[in-house]
Structure formats: C-alpha cells, structure tokens
C-alpha cells in the first residue's frame, strides 16, 4: 500500500462500515432503540445517602468529559442508549413529546473533579419515535435478562403509556457515601 491518503480512505470507509456493524452503529441503535435499553450495573449503593447532596459543578470539567452531548460525559458511565441531550432534551430532561420512565436502573459514577461517587438514575425517555442520535453504550456489568436490573438487553420503557423508546437521561440522585 503505497498511497497513504488512499490507505486512509480505505481504512476510513472500512471503519465506517465496521462502525455501523458495531454495537455503537446505527442498527445497533435500532436494536437499542427497540429494547430501549440502559445498562445499569448493580453497584454498592447500600450506604447511599443522598440527603442534601447536590449535583456537582461541571463548569471546571475539560473537554468531552463535561459535555452532556458526548458519550464521554462523566454521568454516562453505565448508560446504553441515545443521549437525550442529542435528541431535544438534556442530560437530565427528556425531549419534547416524550415521557420519562419511572422504572429505571441506578448506577454510580465518579465525578472527575471532586472525586465523589454519585448515584445516577438512568431514565428512558419513552414514546414519540426513535431518536437515533448519539448512541452511547458503556456495557460494563451487563448481565443476563433474568438478572433483570443488571441487563441492558431489556426495554426499560415500562409503565409509561407506550413502551416505544426515544432516548435516555442521567440524573444525579445523590452521593454514594463510602462506595469509593
């Protein structure tokens, strides 16, 4: 291969094809969308105490770790779905025309600056239509469907008037004391 640009293009197209074949790719999105899944590994939050705890200040965060429209955003450590922030909502509110699910799973993410572990509620935004943007899939701790609360294969749009999945938010419930 003696043409770097060409190599790069081939690799590019190949990567593009590979990407859409990956779990992060579009049809993965559809798959995800169809199951409206969110990955919520069971974490030691038994000593959680959220009373009075506020969400941390992200203003000091550098780069994508502070960007709610990026999969690298610190709150998304256990998410699997489209980012509401890319779909007309924010990282803690659902897009217009959807409804936030009440059934959810809870993860714990460490804030890059204050080093505390925060209890994150990943709620799906339900109804309307697939968002299809900004699929974010951090799949650690995924377990089989019969370990319901740990399975990102499951559509968590339950109890809402429709189980159609749109996107997912990441809401700070409080601080997980002692879990660090």
């Amino acid at each position, binding site marked *: 291969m003696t043409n770097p*640009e060409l190599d790069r*293009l081939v690799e*590019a*197209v190949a*990567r*593009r094809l590979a*990407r859409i074949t990956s779990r992060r790719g*579009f049809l993965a999105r559809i798959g995800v969308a169809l199951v409206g899944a969110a990955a919520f590994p*069971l*974490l*030691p*939050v*038994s000593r*959680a*105490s*959220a*009373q009075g*705890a*506020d*969400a941390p200040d992200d203003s000091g965060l550098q780069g994508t770790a502070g960007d709610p429209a990026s999969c690298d955003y610190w709150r998304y450590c256990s998410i699997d779905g489209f980012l509401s922030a*890319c*779909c*007309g*909502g*924010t990282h*803690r*509110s*659902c*897009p*217009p*025309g*959807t*409804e*936030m699910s*009440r*059934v*959810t*799973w*809870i993860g714990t993410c460490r804030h890059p600056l204050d080093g505390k572990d925060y*209890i994150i*509620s990943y*709620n799906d935004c339900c*109804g*309307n*239509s*697939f*968002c*299809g*943007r*900004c699929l974010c899939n951090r799949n650690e701790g995924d377990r089989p469907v019969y370990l*319901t*609360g*740990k399975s990102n294969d499951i559509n968590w749009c339950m*109890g*809402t*008037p429709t189980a159609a999945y749109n996107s997912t938010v990441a*809401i*700070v*419930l*409080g601080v997980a004391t002692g879990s660090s």
Partner: protein
Amino acid sequence: MHRLGALPRFAAACVAVVVGAGLAGPAPAAEPLGKVETLPAPPGRHWVWVSDVLLRRAALVDADTGRFLGMLPGGPGILAPLRSLDGREIYQAETYYARGTRGARTDLVSITDARSLQPQGEVVIPPRRSEHTSWVAGSALSDDGHFLAVFNLNPATSLSIVDVARRRFVGEVETPGCSLVYAAGPRRFFSLCADGSALVVTLDEDGSPVSKLHTPRWFDPRADPVTEKAVRRGDRWFFVSFEGVVHPVDVSGAEVHFAEPWPLLSDAERKESWRIGGMQPFALHAPSGRLYALMHRGGPDTHKAPGTEVFVYDVDRRERVQRFALRNSLASFVLEQLRMPTGGAVDWLLQHLLPAHGVERIAVTQDDAPVLLAATAFPATLAVYDARSGGHLRDVREVGVAVNYVAAP
C-alpha cells in the same frame, strides 16, 4: 388510564429496583425526575422539518446549530408537518393499520402542540390518502388556516377537508381527473388535472365546497408536463416543466390567472444537457424572489435525478442571477463517519474520489438571512448552505436513516 393503571406497577418497580440495589428506599433526588422539555415560542427562523421514512418521524432541527429540537412521530408513508398560522399547532396526515400492515386502516389528521410536541387531538378522515414518493402537495392548509385538505387517490381522486379549528372532518370533495392539492386563498385550493388544466375548489365558512371550477388548459401535459413539485411566493405559485419552463400561477384574484411562462435554461445550457431533477427540486425565498432549482446534466427521463448544482433565479426579472455547486453528499457522509472537518485533504479526496452523488431535496428559510437545506435519502444527509452566497455552512450529523422530505416552514 393506562398511565393510572400502571402506577401500582411503578411502585412494584421501585421496590424491585431498591431491593435489587439493597436500598431501604429510593433516595430523594438531588435533581428533579420526570422533567420533559418544551420548545420556546415563537419558533426559530431556521428551524426545519426533516422527515424520515424508516424512523417514521419528522425531526425538528435547528439549522444554525445542527441540533435536534424534537420529533413528530408518524406512521408509514408521507410525513409532512404543517404549522398553524399562529404557530401554536402542527397538523399532519397519518395512516395506521390495526396490525401493522393488516387490519383496519385509520387515516387521520393529528394535531400536535408546537411547543410540547405532545398530541392534542386527531381528526379521522377517509382511509384513502395518497402515497407518492415526492411527499409534495399531499396535503395543504387553507390560507386562512381553518381548513386542511388531504389528497386521496384510490384511484378515484378527491380531497378530504378537515376543519382544524373545530377539530372535525367536514367532508370529501371529489376531484375527478385532478390530483394533489395546493392552497390558493383563504378558503380555496386547486388540484392539477391530467388535461393540463387546474381544478379550483372554493369552500364556504363551514368548509363545504361552494364552487368547483376548471381553469383553461395552461400547460401541455403531453408535450412538456409541469412537475407537481411547485413552490409558492405569496399569491403566486411557480410550476416548472420537465424541460425547465416556469409556469407562474397567480391566485390573488377571484379567478386563477396564468402568467407568461419563461425558461430556466438557455439554449447553450440545453446543449450541455442541463436539466432540472430531484424529488424536491425547487425552493423559493419569498422576500427576495429568489428561486432555487436543482440542476444536473442528463437526458430525458432524468427529471428525478439528483442535482449537482443549484441555479438561482430572480422570478421578477425572470433571469438567473447565480449558480453554485453542491457538495458530494456521499463524500460528506463518509467524512462524518471519519469525524473529520470539511475543507481538509481527506474531504477534498472524498469529494473528488467518490462518485458524484447529488442532492434530491432542497428547501430555503424565509428570513432575511436565509439558509438553504440540501438533503439526500441515503446516506441520510442534510447540508446547510448560505442561501445568499451559496457557501456551505455545515452538515447536520446523524440526521436520520432515510430522509424523504425536508421543509422550512
């Protein structure tokens, strides 16, 4: 009631989650749960609809930022949202089957709140609305904003009239030999007829037809038919023929008037085989009178081929004032996958190496700093251009899967 009935299950769910997490009870949230966004009013000047035939939704996109503002869901077929005159509601004709592709068919006009994008109501209409690929002129809102007309083809042709203010189906107006629907006055529509005339339907205050009149033949459907993909400027519609001849239709008066046709293409350009083409090949900026036309080089029967350039015309002076090339939408798509900026070496390489892929649909905003939207179905791309300079401003990422319609209301 589904919602209410579900509440006990929420409780069960919380318990399940809590038990699973070993909590004694859900922690009170530092941030509120259940928040859903609403859109600001009035709508932004560069908010555009981008409909997707596979995702079955029309996305509301801010062309200035490329961000999604929300989505309007729909069923299979044409998804072409229409905004009420006061901007508070969105109307859309939709089709559903009780069992996906079988069972009872329901056609309806949905009414959606423009700020919450939550359904406000629906009006069921006869289950025969037309399906056609351009998605253009399948429905129209009367200029007084009271009546929505939906084109039916079954194959008998008719219009379903909906009183959107009173939320009721008024009735069906037969339009034998005439198809599609264009608004043409406070309570007036017209359809295009196979004989080269138009059928003008006028409604009374209740939405019932008071007159159905054929205009004289104003084009030759055999020699050089006009495309149905027309654009409007105030009281004037502009239809363009396969051969690129503009046929202005004036709907200001009691009678529809047909102004002098004029050609888009010079003999020299014809020799170069320039030709109009696309699924939404025209856009018009009313304030400036600029008509944007998708052009490509091709022979007869290429009237649907994607455009590689945009020719810009002044419809008052009836002459071309500008032309600019469009980016290779396929290259833009690959570039997006590369997460690389436009203008770089790889961009240049892609633009030149990949087979030229034109644009199928364009639309233009109506403000003083208009942007031109250029869309392709697949790969699904939406490019934003400065409508005055023709300069490329941005590509909207992850715009969808199959963009079948773009509108700048």
